[in-house]
C-alpha cells in the first residue's frame, strides 16, 4: 500500500533514508499540510474501543486532528460515529468527554437528535427553506470500521477497507487484545505533552534499556521477539514475555507480577499510522488515543482495560499495575514523557535528526527489524514523506 503520488515544495527531504529534517517538527505550514493529507486524508484513526461504550446511550467525544468526533451506542446496540457538530449551524453538539444520553439537544436553536443521530425535531420548521428535509439533517456521520472492538474513523471516502489497511499489524493488535477484543474500560490517564505529534509517536525500541533505569534495576531483559513495519506506516512489536528478576529494590514486588497465562507472545505493541499506540505489557492492556493540539502540543488519552472474563483478583491486579507502571507518572514510562519535551526543544536547532541503531541501508527502506532497532521507525517516515509529497535531495 503506497502513499499517493504528490509533490509539495515546502520541504526538501535529505537523501539518506535515516535522516529527518528537524524543521518539520515546528513549522506551521507543514502542520496544516499534515492535517489535510494525513488526519483528514485516507487514513483510519482509532477513536474508541467498544469496551468504553457498553450500554445503550453511552457516548464519548474525542478529536481526529482538530475535528471533534462523537461516538454513540444507539438504542439498537449499534455504535455510530459522527462529527460532533449540529447539522444546522455547526455548534458543538456534546461538550462532555463521555457519559450516557437519551438524546442530544443543541442549545442554540433547540434542534433535537436521537442517539442514532437522526433529527427528531427543530422549532419553527414550518418556516424553513424550501429544500429543508428533516430526514437528511441528522448529525453528520463520519465513516467508521471496527477490528476486535477497536473503532476507527476516516474522513476520506478513498481510504481502503480496514482489513487491508491494517495488514500485518493486525497480529500485534490481536495479541494486545487477548485475541478476541472483549475488553472493559478501567479508566484513563490524560496528559498534554509539549511536543509535536510526530516526535511523540517516534519513540523507539533502542532507548528502552538505556533511558529507563527501572529496567536495569529490575534486571529486566526483553524476551525474544520481532519488530516489523508496513509500507503504510504501521509498526508492530511482538515478543516473549520475560518477568523482571531483580525486584529486591522494591518493597512490594507484586506490581511486577504476571498473572496472565500466555507468555510466548506476552508483550505486543501495535503503532498505527499516524499517531496511535496500542500496547500489552505484563497484564496491562493500553490504548493511547492521541491527537495534535496545534503544531507544538499533543494530547494523549491513555485508556486501560481488563478482559470481560477476568475475575476480581485479576481486575484488581490490572488496576494496580496499570495505575503505577505506564502513563505520564508510570514507573517505566515517566522518562518517556520527559524526553518528549526535550526533543521538541532540541528540534528547534538546525539540521537533521539521524537514526543509527539497526540502520543497514541508507538508500532504501526495508521492513523487518530487531526489536531494539530505532530503524524500525524509518518505513513510517518514508510513508510520511510520500504522503506529504516531499521530494528527496539527490544523493
Amino acid at each position, binding site marked *: 500500500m503506497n502513499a499517493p503520488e504528490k509533490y509539495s515544495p515546502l520541504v526538501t527531504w535529505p537523501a539518506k533514508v535515516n535522516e529527518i529534517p528537524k524543521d518539520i517538527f515546528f513549522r506551521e505550514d507543514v502542520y496544516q499540510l499534515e492535517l489535510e493529507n494525513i488526519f483528514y486524508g485516507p487514513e483510519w484513526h482509532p477513536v474508541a474501543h467498544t469496551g468504553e461504550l457498553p450500554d445503550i446511550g453511552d457516548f464519548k467525544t474525542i478529536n481526529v486532528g482538530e475535528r471533534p468526533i462523537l461516538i454513540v451506542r444507539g438504542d439498537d446496540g449499534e455504535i455510530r460515529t459522527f462529527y460532533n457538530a449540529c447539522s444546522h449551524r455547526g455548534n458543538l453538539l456534546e461538550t462532555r*468527554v*463521555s457519559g450516557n444520553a437519551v438524546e442530544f439537544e443543541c442549545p442554540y436553536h433547540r434542534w433535537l437528535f436521537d442517539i442514532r443521530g437522526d433529527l427528531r425535531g427543530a422549532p419553527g420548521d414550518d418556516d424553513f427553506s424550501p429544500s429543508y428535509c428533516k430526514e437528511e439533517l441528522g448529525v453528520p456521520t463520519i465513516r467508521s470500521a471496527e477490528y476486535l472492538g477497536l473503532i476507527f474513523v476516516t474522513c476520506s471516502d478513498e481510504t481502503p477497507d480496514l482489513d487491508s489497511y491494517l495488514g500485518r499489524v493486525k497480529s500485534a493488535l490481536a495479541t494486545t487484545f487477548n485475541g478476541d477484543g472483549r475488553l472493559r*474500560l*478501567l*479508566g*484513563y*490517564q*490524560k*496528559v*498534554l*505533552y*509539549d511536543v509535536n505529534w510526530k516526535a511523540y509517536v517516534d519513540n523507539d525500541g533502542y532507548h528502552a534499556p538505556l*533511558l529507563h*533505569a*527501572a529496567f536495569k*534495576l529490575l534486571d529486566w531483559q526483553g524476551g525474544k521477539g520481532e519488530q516489523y513495519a508496513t509500507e503504510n506506516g504501521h509498526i508492530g512489536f511482538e515478543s516473549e514475555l520475560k518477568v523482571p528478576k531483580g525486584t529486591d*529494590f*522494591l*518493597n*512490594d514486588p507484586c*506490581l511486577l507480577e504476571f498473572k496472565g497465562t500466555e507468555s510466548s507472545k506476552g508483550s505486543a505493541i501495535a503503532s498505527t499510522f499516524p499517531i496511535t499506540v496500542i500496547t500489552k505489557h505484563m497484564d496491562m492492556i493500553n490504548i493511547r488515543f492521541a491527537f495534535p493540539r496545534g503544531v507544538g502540543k499533543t*494530547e494523549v488519552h491513555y485508556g*486501560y482495560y481488563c478482559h470481560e472474563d477476568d475475575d476480581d483478583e485479576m481486575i484488581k491486579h490490572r*488496576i*494496580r499495575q*496499570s*495505575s*503505577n507502571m505506564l*502513563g*505520564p*507518572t508510570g*514507573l517505566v514510562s*515517566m*522518562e518517556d*514523557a*520527559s524526553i518528549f*519535551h*526535550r526533543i521538541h526543544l532540541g528540534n528547534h536547532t538546525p539540521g537533521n535528526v539521524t537514526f543509527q541503531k539497526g540502520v543497514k541501508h541508507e538508500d532504501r527502506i526495508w521492513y523487518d527489524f530487531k526489536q531494539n532497532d530505532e530503524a524500525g521507525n524509518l518505513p513510517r517516515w518514508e510513508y510520511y514523506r510520500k504522503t506529504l509529497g516531499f521530494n528527496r535531495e539527490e544523493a
Partner: protein
Amino acid sequence: MSQLSNEILLALDNAQNSYIHALDTKNMDGWLASFTTDGSYICIAAENEANNLPIALMLDDCYARLQDRVTYVTKVWAGTFEDYQTRHFTQRISAEAMGNDTYKIITNYHILFTPEQGQTNVLVTGHYDDEIVLGDTPLFKSKKAVMDTNVSPRYIVYPV
C-alpha cells in the same frame, strides 16, 4: 456534625501543612513520614472518580508502595527529568470526627509549578479526601488527591 475544637482543627491543619511542605521542599522521606504505617495514597482524575473508573495516576494502596514511590523519585527517575518546583496552596473545606482519634477532612488544593526555565504555571487543581489520625504526631491514614485537571499539563514526578 459536632463542632471540632480549635485545637483539633489546628492539629489537622498542621498535618496538611507538613505534607505540602515536604512536597514543596522535595523531601520524599518527609512525605513518607506523613503517613501511618498502614497508610495509603491515591492520586486520581476527577473524571475517573465520577464514573467509578478505578485507574489512578498513582496508586499506593499499601505502605510498601508508599516506600517504593520514594525510591521511584529519588533513585529510578533521578537525572532523567526536567525538575520543577511546586507550591501547594490548600484550604480546608470540612472536617468530621470518625472516632478513635480519626478525622475525615476535605481540602481544596491548587498547585503551581515552576520548571528550571522559570515560567510558572498551574500544575493541577482539585481536592484532597483524607483521613488523619491524631496521635503524638498527626498522620494520614489515607490520602486521596482527586484532580479536577483531568488532562494534566505535563508529566508528574512528585506526588500531589
